[in-house]
């Protein structure tokens, strides 16, 4: 036998043996850390970095292996499907998923549950999780946010609320405005929606001018509610440019430094703090406890909406400065 060939042959056997060693040993389940696949939103959407931070902090505290799989909001349906397929294929101990597009994700949740992977629904999907066989839900109800916002703005004296949707066609954001519309009608006010063109959604200057133009052509509007902090500050700029500060009340979702400053100087009436950090943190914690002990909270766990306004701004600011990326991006 050729010496060179023999050497290659032995090296090949050795490499295969080394690679197969972990598979060969029985490997006690308790030694291997729990692995969690977390399917949620992309980090270029400012809502999700705190959620990711929360998930990572919990994973570190509990010693579990976290695999965060983000969807692409520009191609939300296809990537919602692909990310769930990836998660299921990895055979994790549990899947935590943000059910943003229920028509696409629900079948995959059912598929995962049927394959023996417990699923925990996180942040979105409050109506479907039980029917799909998931063992729990943590997050907030979109329409709840709209209701709370409507109450706040109407209490401040508004009669005609503009609800600004910054991602056109996004069902979660539309549900929020729908909740706002229903509550407004109940309390005797009117509301309308403004869907911003997709291309403008991150261009604050353009968004500010779009809202300004809308205000000028719809003179009755006396309150604006926006669904993220960047659009919120664009809205306050529009109100200021039209010299209607104080006459038009503005509230927004999400927290940013500028938004907190505007609460302090009165340009913003209130912020809805969705506490995405808790969504991430609790998602990992609840999934881990279920995998380990089979224990889980009964029923949905609400992490929002909680309101930030002049009354609690100082407390929030202190946490914001001390712990970056927990309350909102710095």
């Amino acid at each position, binding site marked *: 036998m050729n010496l060179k060939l023999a050497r290659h042959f032995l090296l090949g056997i050795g490499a295969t043996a080394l690679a197969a060693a972990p598979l060969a040993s029985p490997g006690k389940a308790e030694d291997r850390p729990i692995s969690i696949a977390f399917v949620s939103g992309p980090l270029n959407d400012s809502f999700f970095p705190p959620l990711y931070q929360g998930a990572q902090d919990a994973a570190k505290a509990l010693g579990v292996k976290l695999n965060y799989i983000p969807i692409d909001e520009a191609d939300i349906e296809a990537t919602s499907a692909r990310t769930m397929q990836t998660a299921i294929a990895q055979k994790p101990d549990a899947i935590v998923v943000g059910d943003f597009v229920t028509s696409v994700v629900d079948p995959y949740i059912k598929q995962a549950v049927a394959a023996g992977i417990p699923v925990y629904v996180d942040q979105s999907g409050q109506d479907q999780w039980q029917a799909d066989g998931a063992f729990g839900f943590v997050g907030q109800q979109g329409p709840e946010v709209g209701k709370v916002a409507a109450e706040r703005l109407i209490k401040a004296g508004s009669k005609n609320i503009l609800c600004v949707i910054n991602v056109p066609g996004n069902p979660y954001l539309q549900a929020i405005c729908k909740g706002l519309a229903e509550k407004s009608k109940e309390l005797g006010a009117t509301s309308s929606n403004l869907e911003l063109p997709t*291309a*403008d959604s991150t261009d604050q200057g353009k968004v500010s*001018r779009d809202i300004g*133009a809308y205000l000028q052509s719809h003179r009755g509007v006396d309150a604006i509610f926006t669904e993220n902090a960047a659009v919120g*500050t664009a809205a306050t*700029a529009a109100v200021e440019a039209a010299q209607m500060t104080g006459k038009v009340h503005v509230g927004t979702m999400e927290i940013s430094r500028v938004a907190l400053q505007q609460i302090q100087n009165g340009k913003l009436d209130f912020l809805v703090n969705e506490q995405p950090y808790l969504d991430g943190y609790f998602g990992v914690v609840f999934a881990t406890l279920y995998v380990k002990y089979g224990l889980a909270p009964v029923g949905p766990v609400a992490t929002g909406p909680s309101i930030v306004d002049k009354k609690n701004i100082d407390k929030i600011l202190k946490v914001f400065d001390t712990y970056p990326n927990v309350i909102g*991006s710095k």
Partner: protein
Amino acid sequence: MLASPDQTNIAEARPAESFDDAASTEPVRRRSRLTGFLLRPEAGGVVSALLVFIFFAIAAGQNGFLTVLGTANWLDTASDLGIIALPVGMLMIGGEFDLSVGSVVGASSMIVAICSGYYSLNPWIGVAIAFAFAAAVGVANGLIVVRTRLPSFIVTLATMLMVMGGMLGASIALTGSSSLSAVPSGSAQAVFASNLLQFHISIVHWLVLTAIAAYVMQRTAFGNWVYATGGNSVTARLAGVPVDRVKIILFVCTALAAALSAANETLTFQNGNITLGSQYVFTGIAAAVIGGVLLTGGYGSPVGTVFGSLTYGIVSLGVFFLGWNADLANFFVGLLLLLAVLANHRLRQLAMGRA
């Protein structure tokens, strides 16, 4: 039989021009001033801007379109786009495309925010680093295009993805976030973020850049080189034009404009965002084409691009004054783009046939 005015034109024009170019005032005088204007590259852009302004003035005038605030609205929008459309148009005249402008805007925005917000440095430092980064991307784009002779469409598509992903990764690694506050102060605020009434200082930046671009394209050798490179780069090279250097400089210009636009937006709204500027990839090209720049290169002018940007600004804000579905703005811009290309094509045919 009396010869028709056109025949008289051509019969008298040709001999005069072929024997004595310097004294060819005769045919010029016979051609009407209107025709002369319509044959200029900017004609399409001016006409488009005028038409849409008149349309929205009539339809939305009483809704606030004609107020000072309304005018500031579309002028600000036009200037934001215009700053980027100018060098994009010049690059297109030079025969190349830059698809990475959008992601350079986003990346520059994050650099400014990370430096001035996260690290609390003087905002000028963030701006300087952003400009340096943009210049580096421009040089990279230019070098890859001239060395590999690959289509710039593909090269800049690749750099767009790399800049976008790279910056997102870097900002998450450094700060854990993709959206940060930027804290303007002092002179940086005045230069990038100030307003007069509701007119933003980006209008001033835009006008200055337009003046420089128009001068360079009309009056300098470099301007000639750009037209030559775009018209036929092989011939240009043989004639001694430094084609490679021209292209690299143009790519650096588009990237620097992207950084300027990012600095304006980030310091005005005190927020840096990785996705800022993604729409400029398309709207920049649209503004240039509506303004008379040919996709094949070698033809167009900065002034035309200015009017193309004005057209876009008027249309994209006008729909809000009318209360129409905001995505109709995109429909209009697309439609105008098509009409402008057809009109420019027709006018160019006329120019070729009659001169």
